[in-house]
């Protein structure tokens, strides 16, 4: 026996060490970005800053907050996320509840209609043409409505209702003369708050982070969400997004511009990602719950 426990101890040590290494590798880029956002850009660009901040400065954040395009993008993203999540929940919850009730006729057919969209869809071009023909191009609705709901969320919410709302409760209330609408608002929803939070969070994160719908449907910069602005700054290296800063500094040297650009880059990553990164550890159990209900299938 002792031979095994000795090798088990070695196993434990090795395993602990490997997990620690993997975790450090995963977390390192995030620490780097945080440190780079408050370090002197020259130290960052020459590789002098590699872990902890060097010559701390908050210039990057000041430039970011002076940049009008970023503010507009931020405002738009918050607006799209709030409106999108509201519509998502408004149409998701009643539908999932209806599909969880055994009185519903042709339930199989309805479910099949919904699930089939997971297997097959019209593809990018026909979907684009439908959105275009509905006159949604270059409006907020092109961001909020296509993709407002998916088969997966309906399945998750339905499974939740099936597991938490007992049939007897529904039957008893019905005998007392309660309507489905009354039952839904007064009984079902109050019992489902954690699930509602989970569904809202998942959809909210997706909306906050998406850029592609905005890329194909929007051309008016005043409507751009934050992610499109980020794409200009981080990937396309468009300094025009920096207009406010350059106007203030009038005749900036080229070297200065490069310096500013790299300062702004890291700061803008922080400003856009921080809300989610701060919030999710507190809501982690909700997210995990969502993934797990989603993985339970009948």
């Amino acid at each position: 026996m002792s031979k095994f426990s000795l090798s088990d101890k070695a196993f434990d040590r090795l395993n602990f060490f490997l997990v620690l290494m993997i975790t450090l590798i995963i977390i390192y880029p995030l620490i780097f970005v945080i440190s780079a956002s408050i370090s002197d850009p020259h130290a960052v660009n020459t590789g002098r800053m590699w872990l902890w901040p060097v010559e701390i400065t908050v210039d990057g954040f000041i430039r970011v907050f002076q940049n009008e395009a970023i503010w507009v993008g931020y405002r738009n993203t918050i607006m799209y996320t709030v409106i999108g999540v509201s519509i998502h929940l408004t149409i998701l919850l009643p539908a999932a509840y209806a599909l969880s009730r055994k009185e519903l006729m042709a339930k199989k057919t309805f479910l099949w209609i919904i699930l089939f969209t997971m297997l097959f869809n019209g593809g990018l071009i026909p979907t684009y043409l439908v959105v275009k023909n509905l006159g949604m191009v270059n409006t907020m609705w092109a961001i909020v409505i296509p993709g407002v709901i998916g088969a997966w969320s309906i399945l998750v919410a339905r499974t939740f209702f099936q597991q938490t709302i007992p049939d007897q409760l529904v039957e008893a209330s019905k005998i007392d003369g309660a309507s489905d609408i009354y039952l839904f608002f007064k009984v079902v929803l109050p019992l489902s708050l954690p699930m509602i939070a989970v569904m809202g969070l998942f959809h909210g994160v997706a909306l906050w982070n998406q850029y592609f719908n905005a890329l194909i449907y929007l051309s008016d910069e005043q409507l751009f969400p934050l992610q499109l602005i980020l794409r200009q700054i981080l990937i396309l290296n468009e300094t025009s997004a920096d207009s406010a800063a350059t106007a203030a500094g009038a005749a900036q040297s080229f070297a200065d511009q490069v310096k500013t650009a790299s300062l702004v880059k890291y700061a803008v990553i922080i400003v856009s990602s921080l809300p989610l990164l701060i919030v999710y550890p507190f809501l982690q159990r909700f997210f995990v719950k969502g993934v797990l209900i989603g993985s339970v299938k009948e």
Partner: protein
Amino acid sequence: MDQMKKRYQITTNFRSNWQLYLFLLPVLTYFFVFHYIPMYGVQIAFKDYFANLGMFGSPWVGFEHFVRFFESYYFWRLLKNTIILNAYNLLLFPLPIIFALMLNELRNGTFKKWTQTLTYAPHFISVVVVVGMLVAFLDPNTGIINHVLRSFGIEPVSFLTSPEWFRHIYVWSGQWQSLGWGTIIYLAALAGVNPELHEAAKVDGASRFQRILHINIPSILPTIIILFILNIGNFMQIGFEKVLLMQNNLNSETSDIIQTFVYETGLLEGQYSFAAAIGLFESAINIVLLITVNHIARKVSSNSLW
């Protein structure tokens, strides 16, 4: 008689439960407009789309667009790039499983919790930011990676403009984002493993590693199979939004995949019908793959999606 009875049942059911059908109406309308109309609209792949005639009024041309695509010089390149990129990604499918098995063996609960929270973090970062970070880290002059290479006396590499680096960067940055998050389902499955099995194995003198191999892995195998089928279902169409962001003229030799091509020809050049045909070709491959894998899984293991 029977039919009358049935009709009567339907009307009474509808009369007493009409509110439930009302609840369902918005979602059904959504799926009809944004999924089923586009599905019906796929017919433009067999038509010559004219904006003034619309999706349903444009003239039929049969398989013309498909033939043009199959005969084009870029067809094989697009197909090859798409398959290699996805196969490479699929090859890393076991990594979250291994990481979950490792996390499951941790004896220190606090450390385990911290590890989970920290490794989930990249999941919440948008693709735009991830690619933005890649651009910054891999920059040939100012990027940290090239500084490290330089300190070892290696010439700086312009990673993001090199076709030979594109796939590695794409796949491994994806793994960085999803490794931690991908363990959630496996960890839950591992929590459900019967502890008596482990006790019995311990009595028989099985080591930790043997118990992982002969108890934990077989116990979560059904979960693994289902997730594998789901992954296959997404074969050919994963992460296209990230490819689009990482793509440039210099790396297009390996980064041109079917979906980015659909986007370019369809939405940038306005060749709607041609692009729709290419998109349809891709969906068709996907469905065939999914059905095949599901069929095999059902035959071999009795775990399947349907």
